[in-house]
């Protein structure tokens, strides 16, 4: 980790994750996340120059499915967990973008 974990960086990560943090939370999480990164940084001790980057933790490749339809969910079931719907669509607060 070359980038130091600052309160500004915590705020930025929170914003990207759409989390609203109070100032005391930013302070607390900065400390906690610094601890986490410090712990993980122990791995830096390992010389990995000749190790190929790992693309996947399992040694599996080419897990494929045939292009055949499988049963899905009814609309009712698909919308069941949504906070708000009109019975046909998921409803979300107005998106003020593009136009």
């Amino acid at each position: 980790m070359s980038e130091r974990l600052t309160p500004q960086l915590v705020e930025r990560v929170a914003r990207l994750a759409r989390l609203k943090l109070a100032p005391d939370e930013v302070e607390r999480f900065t400390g906690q996340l610094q601890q986490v990164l410090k712990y993980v940084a122990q791995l830096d001790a390992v010389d990995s120059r000749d190790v190929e980057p790992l693309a996947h933790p399992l040694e599996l490749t080419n897990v494929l499915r045939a292009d055949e339809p499988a049963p899905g969910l009814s609309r009712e079931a698909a919308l069941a967990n949504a906070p708000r719907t009109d019975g046909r669509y998921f409803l979300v607060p107005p998106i003020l973008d593009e136009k």
Partner: protein
Amino acid sequence: MNATPIIGLEVHVQLLTRTKIFCGCPNRFNPDQPNTQTCPVCLGLPGALPVLNEEAFRLSLRTALALGCRIAPFTKWDRKQYYYPDLPKGYQISQYDLPFSHDGVVEIGGETEGDVPRRLRIRRAHLEEDAGKNLHDESGRGGDSRVDLNRAGTPLLEIVTEPDLGSAADARAFLEDLRLLLTDLEVSDCNMQEGSLRCDANVNVRLALDDGGTATTPIVEIKNLNTFSGVEAAIEHELARQIAEFQRTGRRFGDPGAEKETRGWSAERNETFAQRGKEEASDYRYFPDPDLAPVTVAAEEVARIQERLCEPPGARRRRFAGEHQLSEYDARVIVSQGRQFADYFEAVARACGDAKQAANFVTQDVLRELNARGLGIREFPLTSDVLGGLLARVAQGGITVKSAREIFGELLAAWSARAEAAEDGADVDVGELPGEAAIERIIAERGLAIVNDEGALEAALAAAIADSPRAVEDFRAGKQQAAGAIIGKVMKQVKGADPKRVRELLLKKLA
């Protein structure tokens, strides 16, 4: 001020699979029944496990190879993370640093006299999933947005070019050929109204300044262009806007505050407009998707697909112009109708031995009939063998072109009549297509065979002359058109006589 446009495209193509890329939900455009084609995988419900659709990968390989790309022996999947209501998981499964293909090249132009062909490099093509669709409240009262997730998880091929395009017209030409190629390869229907083919354009301009230096304007990405004319018009407009802006502000690429800008395109107002910059848009925090296994591709499989690729449209047009001596226009019309149509033309040309005549018939008569009847070339009742056989008779001097057109029309009319009779319940075989026998019959019935029997012509001519003393007199007095009456009489007597030959004989006789 001398301006050199710098244009690159990002094209998104929905693939023609039966099911979505990572689940078995139908891959079908169905906006009238929102949220009826979903499952835990494409809704991003906890615990769902995506599995790659092998057909989506195969179609992608085929396309990348046709674009001259190299296929990576090892490719993996990454999560591109951002929040938007049409993206239920909070990330899009895409490919970041190990796309399945890269470094292709296609050729543009060079088909008209003096036009030097241009190379367009393809940076990469990668596979990803499409998002759902947001529908905004259009009333202006700030109502809720609605989300339809039928499209979420549709296999999407993203093709990224290098910024090698030097004009809006070339960008359009590339896209038009790309659409032909994709439909010829049967990897996409490229239905632009339904969003199967969508394009973003990256545009800026290098300017030669009066002081001898150069300046490059800031890059603008124009989003969501979904018609060919829109692509061309948006780029044209944007180039002019950037030059005007530079003259006003002097701002260059790389200046502070002149980062890449995103703009939209309004066809109604014929202008691009600033879009609210996505906050920290580039911060997608990609990382490998642990749910999906990497994919390896064997060289033998690449070779196998490569072998079965069809000829790209540009190469085919150039070959038609060379091998078949077609005009640039004819080659363009024929190839633009798609692979099956061009195959049909080639078969007719081979069968009749006269490519120019074959081109005339397919671009005029065949196209007209297909359009009028709403048929595709595969449903056209005259097979390439039959039309080829008909035109071979013209090439060999057996019938005139005019007769060939008459027979062509007659064969189609007879076929239509049979089809109609069958619809009315008559017991006729509509599967039986017009063939050689029908051509022979019409030629015999109507006496369309060109008669080269000079004896018969001489006799008929002698009789006609004897029968038309008045016409002969007029003709000898210098009235050229009087010959017509005599020729007509001969033609009536000897059906299929070549009027040109009759005229020659007549002139000799009366000379």
